[in-house]
């Protein structure tokens, strides 16, 4: 399998926080979850893959190229933040069509693509509304639509479902699965929800105190290991979930 992301000996310091010696390969078309407590460094790892930071040691390559050597606008990465990061001064339609407008796609084709994407994500009824008037689920779908309409090679999501109610979460899991099948992009997302990681991901990386301590297939998430901190993280918080699984 081809490697989509290759992280080698990656370390970064941000104030008092440090990500230490991360090594990780993510393959084409894979769904990979980074699981960890709040403050473990999940989001920093995700942002590092997107090339948000320029000062670090080691390498982060996407499709064989160092992410910081490729200009941001040419990285072909879709990014969905925890709070969705919708442009507040644009309607849902303009948010989704933003990247297409930048590509100078003519208005008719742009509107057609936006409508298609809105239909896939069931947000056709809010296209003329501003983000401030949307529900959490609608915002989340808008952010996904905006990222996916450009057919990115890779979709990065930062705790994308944490603000949603359980019912909306369940429907979003299914929608992401469908999107993955339709678009065939590699997905890397971070979460602190074991259940979510197991349902959605092929493999799961476990972050503890700024270190990627273990990588497992999602079906083997709860296997015990020699690392006491991983065991504490998994077993100390998730007996109910484990039993359910």
């Amino acid at each position, binding site marked *: 399998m081809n490697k989509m992301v290759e992280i080698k000996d990656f370390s970064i310091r941000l104030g008092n926080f440090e990500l230490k010696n991360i090594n990780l390969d993510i393959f084409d078309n894979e769904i990979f979850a980074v699981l960890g407590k709040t403050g473990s460094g999940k*989001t920093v790892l995700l942002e590092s893959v*997107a090339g*948000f930071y320029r000062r670090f040691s080691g390498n982060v390559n996407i499709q064989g190229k160092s992410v910081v050597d490729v200009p*941001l*606008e*040419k*990285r072909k*990465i*879709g*990014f969905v*933040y*925890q*709070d*969705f*990061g*919708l*442009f*507040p*001064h644009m309607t849902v339609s303009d948010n989704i069509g*933003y*990247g297409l407008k*930048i*590509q100078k796609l003519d208005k008719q084709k742009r509107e057609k693509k936006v409508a298609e994407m809105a239909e896939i994500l069931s947000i056709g009824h809010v296209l003329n509304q501003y*983000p*401030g008037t*949307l529900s959490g689920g609608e*915002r989340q779908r808008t952010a996904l639509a*905006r*990222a996916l309409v*450009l057919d990115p090679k890779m979709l990065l999501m930062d705790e994308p479902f944490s603000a949603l109610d359980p019912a909306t979460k369940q429907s979003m899991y299914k929608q992401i699965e469908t999107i993955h099948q339709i678009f065939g992009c590699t997905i890397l997302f971070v979460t602190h929800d074991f259940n979510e990681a197991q349902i959605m991901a092929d493999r799961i990386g476990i972050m503890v105190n700024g270190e990627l301590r273990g990588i497992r297939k999602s079906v083997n998430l709860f296997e015990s290991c020699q690392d006491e901190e991983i065991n504490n993280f998994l077993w100390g918080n998730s007996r109910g979930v484990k039993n359910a699984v």
Partner: protein
Amino acid sequence: MITAVFVVGFTAVLILTIIVKGFPYLGETFFSEEVQFSIRMSLYTASISTCICLFLGVPTAYALTKTSFPFKKICQIIIELPLSMPYLVLGLSLLLIFSSDFGKALKEMGIRVVFDKNGIILAQTVVNLPYVVRFVRNAFEEVDERLEFISGSLGASKWERFITITLPLSKNAIISTIILTWSRGLGEFGATLMLVGATRMKTETLTTSVYLNLATGDTGAAMASATIILIISFTSLFITNWLGRKNDPKSRMKDVTLR
């Protein structure tokens, strides 16, 4: 609460004094050739200097917030140093520069600064530019850089990110800055006096008119000019507040607060 009442009361007394003393003379003074000249001169110079301040201030504020370069902090201190300097001293500095050989060379090229309306524009620009840089810098800093990052990840170049995200999200703050800069330009006096002096019907702005009329004992005319300044200031402040209320950036941004 008592302190607030005192401050409001004191400010109201100051404003009322100008209105009560100036209003009776407003009718006859407003249409005098001299006051008409000073109104035109004030509006013209304040408008031009505001445009120059924006033209120079917005890119400077952008450079200070969105880019990194060596000695950035020192540059920021130098740019903002005039904020804490008396305007009279700034005016003196301008006078020394433009009375030197450099100023004389400019004069020979047809660009007059000392004792000319160009000097008024320059003085207003020098006094207001640090304010514009600071206000616009604050506005740019309030725009979440993650929105700009997302915009970049969607294919926008740095310029497109600025035009489509940074600038629209700073729009209200920039409009307020324009209005405040313009009204500050209108009220500028210290630096202007040092650089162009106070010559009737030549370098006479509204504030100069107040000064000249007071100096010659014509208190009524001075207060009438002061009332005109007050009316213009009140109008610009009203517009600024109205714009602020019409589209409050905080309510606009509440749904995109990222972490």
